[in-house]
């Protein structure tokens, strides 16, 4: 009896530490299944992306040339250059091959390679969205923990109210309000863009200038997104409050602070991790309105400009990137959960 209990405890310990032979192969299988299904999803997106832009009404060659008196020969030449005259399956094959080689085609507007345009816009978006995601996660989770742990306290009541208001705000609206008040009337911040056009260029001054431009769009995204993290964190912490293991921890004589940090928060963090990873994927494309309000030269704005042109190859490229971002972020979220939560691994 005692032996059997010991055996069971050892197995449980092995499972938790992930060193057992059986569980590690299970982990590998879980991971490979998840990666494989992500790859399938990505391929479906690729197919959808290709055909979506082929059913649009416009004649790409006509759009591209924007010229009055094109002869039939000239049109044919353009169709040849862009491979538009080929049968659809062959176009699709070319598209796949080129995409896997990192060639996303050329912009209809300025004829630059789409990969290059996306490459230029990627860094500003990563900077803006990355910074704001880190800020909103840290602040949001902190507010959620503090509020949830002391439910009903003055801090909890006021922060929940405040966060609810933020949650209801569209980001472009908040952006416009901050722009008009802080950048307009008070002139504390620039009116948009990423750098001053006065050419105050390099080194420390350049960095300061960049941060000054980053401030407002970053504040907007942070405020709008922190609400979600804080609310989710708060409610999942509240769910944990009644858990027996907390009672045990307290009975062991642990300080309240330690009970929260070591026991309640790690357990309550799981839904937040999922949410953060989900948002991370969407947030790249979700910054379209904020980037447009603040003329921030990132991917969202690139999509907006391409949509107005209309510049299909660039749109195709950004769509692909956005979908890939969501899929990859989901995959990472799944994998992280597998590592964090033994229950997921066993399932």
């Amino acid at each position, binding site marked *: 009896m005692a032996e059997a209990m010991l055996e069971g405890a050892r197995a449980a310990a092995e499972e938790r530490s992930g060193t057992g032979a059986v569980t590690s192969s299970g982990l590998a299988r879980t991971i490979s299944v998840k990666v494989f299904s992500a790859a399938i999803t990505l391929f479906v997106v690729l197919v959808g992306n290709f055909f979506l832009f082929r059913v649009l009404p*416009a*004649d790409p060659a006509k759009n591209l040339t924007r010229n009055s008196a094109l002869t039939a020969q000239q049109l044919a030449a353009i169709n040849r250059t862009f491979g538009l005259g080929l049968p659809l399956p062959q176009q699709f094959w070319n598209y796949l091959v080129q995409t896997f080689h990192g060639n996303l085609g050329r912009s209809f507007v300025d004829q630059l390679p789409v990969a290059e345009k996306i490459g230029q816009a990627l860094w500003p978006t990563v900077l803006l969205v990355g910074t704001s995601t880190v800020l909103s996660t840290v602040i949001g989770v902190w507010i959620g923990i503090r509020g949830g742990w002391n439910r009903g306290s003055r801090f909890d009541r006021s922060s929940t109210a405040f966060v609810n208001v933020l949650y209801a705000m569209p980001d472009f609206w908040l952006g*416009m*309000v901050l722009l008009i008040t802080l950048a307009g009337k008070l002139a504390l911040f620039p009116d948009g*863009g990423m750098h001053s056009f006065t050419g105050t260029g390099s080194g420390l001054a350049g960095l300061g200038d960049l941060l000054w431009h980053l401030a407002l769009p970053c504040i907007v995204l942070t405020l709008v997104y922190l609400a979600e993290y804080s609310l989710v964190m708060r409610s999942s912490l509240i769910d944990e409050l009644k858990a027996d293991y907390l009672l045990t921890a307290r009975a062991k004589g642990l300080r309240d602070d330690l009970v929260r940090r070591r026991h309640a928060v790690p357990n309550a963090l799981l839904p937040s991790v999922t949410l953060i990873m989900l948002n991370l994927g969407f947030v790249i494309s979700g910054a379209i309105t904020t980037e447009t309000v603040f003329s921030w030269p990132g991917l969202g704005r690139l999509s907006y400009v391409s949509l107005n042109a209309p510049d299909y190859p660039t749109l195709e490229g950004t769509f692909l990137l956005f979908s890939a971002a969501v899929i990859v972020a989901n995959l990472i979220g799944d994998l992280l959960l597998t590592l964090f939560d033994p229950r997921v691994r066993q399932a």
Partner: protein
Amino acid sequence: MLRSKSRPRLRLFAAGLAAVGGLAAAAPALAATAAPAARSAAMSSPASSSTFVVGNTDAVDTLNPFLGFTSQDYEVYGLIYDNLMDYGQLNYAGTPRLATSWSHSKDGLTWTYHIRKGVKWSDGVPLTAADVAYTFQRNIKPGSTEFSDNEAYVGEITSAVATGKYTVVMKVKHFTPVMNRLEVPILPEHIWKNVSEKQLSSFKNLNPVGSGAFTVSSFSSNQSIRLTANPNYWGGKPGIKTLVFQRFDNPTAEKLALANGTIDFAEGLTPALWQSLKRTQGVKLINAPAGNFDELAFNNGAATVTGKPIGNGNPALKDINVRHAISYALNIPVLVKKVLLNTGEVGNSIIPPIYTQFHYTPPASQSYHFDPAKAETILSADGWKMGPGGIRVKNGKQLSLRLFVRNQSPTQTQDAPYIKGWLNAIGIKVTLTAMSDSQLTADIGNGQYDMFMWGWGVEPNPDFQLSVFTCGQRSYGSGPNYSPGWSDSFYCNPAYDKLYHQQQALDGAPRAKVVKQMQKMLYEADAYNVLYFYNDIQAYRSDLFTGFAPSPDKPNGLYLYQEIQWWSYRCIRPAGSSPSLTDHNIGCDHEIGAVTAPTSSGVNGGLIGGIAGAVVVLAGGIWLISRRRRVAMADERE
């Protein structure tokens, strides 16, 4: 085809504004005027204040002049490069620029151009006739990118040869007045001979070598470009040292930047934003008639160039009486007032009135005006009897028409409900659909429409705009997806085509006479209803800069973004400084003196009201939520 966005050098639409215009409308009360704050420290010193910053909702895509096509691209190309001629500020006649004089042989087939002496490229190499000849040789090869890009100017040229160091001789197939206005950027042979036609599409031209008044010092595609004045410019040193074009995706931010003085000139504002600057101290507003119009287009009977009918247009619109009735049902002054906020005027013929020598004004007795009773009489006389539901019927068929509008156009989407209402009032049923530009282009090309709204930007040379109504511009190819030509009315009249070819071989008054006759023909046939001519609205810091050379040469002329002209840039100078220009040929003697805008009292009521309102709403919301929360908590406790 994409019309206003497209070549040859048509001005850009307010397209970019559309989506963001919606955002701008989100906070109208807050978007009120503010007293100008001091310029930021970096820009307040006198030396750097000769940096002139232009804000626009559009930006330069590429510095390769063969690839760019937006009006902002051309605005910058015209500063980096010189053309042979300028369009004159007074009457759009060709005036000397790199060519000091020119003449043609008696038969009009051989043209001799004398090139300005002593001009240097920005890298120090002298500019000669060889460069000019090279540029045109490169442009005249049919089928090439270069040819497509400049066809409107070089289409008739068969050869270009430098016969001396400063003389170029060109030959043309037929006489054409375009040879007096060759708006083609002259390129340095020693740079461009290394760029083959194949390499052209990937050549970025990041450090352009030009002969113009400015050189590029930094460029960020689709965002901003910084230009430095060329101190050795043959036309005199420009009055500013640095010129910046900055893109704003958000016109509200652009307006704020002008009010704060971080930019000095704003182009591309919406009428509402532009009007909100009226009381801003130091800002002057310009409401300049430009070469633009919006139209209500009719399907006059869609067909291909071979005359084969296509599409599904309502045959009722082939009847001139129905078109007349529609034109008499429209109350266009209302659109000008409510939609354009008076930044435009009621339209009539297809060449806008700023081109005074070409514009045709119909006599008052013949012009269409709001007269619904007359419209109803016309329809009744035509056999359209009032039927059930207030919709007219003829031979058992209801008078029911589709109206397509562009969802990208904030003004046209506002116009459409008015038009629907006016037509309903005379017994015409209208089904309204908003769609994308590309969808509409395809529908027009296939003739699958009854009416739609769009617009054109007309350039000083009316040739292209007139060509839009020729039979050869109808669709071609085969169904179901026909290739659209430029025609968007499917008007086809051999007599009109004959006049079109006739005007191509004429110049001056005889040409103007034919051009007017063609417009009269279109107007009387009611092929199209030109609703209004919309202005180009601009605003600038008159407290900081002066010296603009408007075109046309009047206080309400275009200050910048002139119709293929660049008169102001060389003349702008900081307010209070004296003109430093010596060469009067370049138009600075036409400058408009510093005009001060009416001063404002600073903070405006709308702003205070807006903020107060927002605060009240916010506070109320917080109170409500916290109260509900408290109640919920109390429930829980119990």
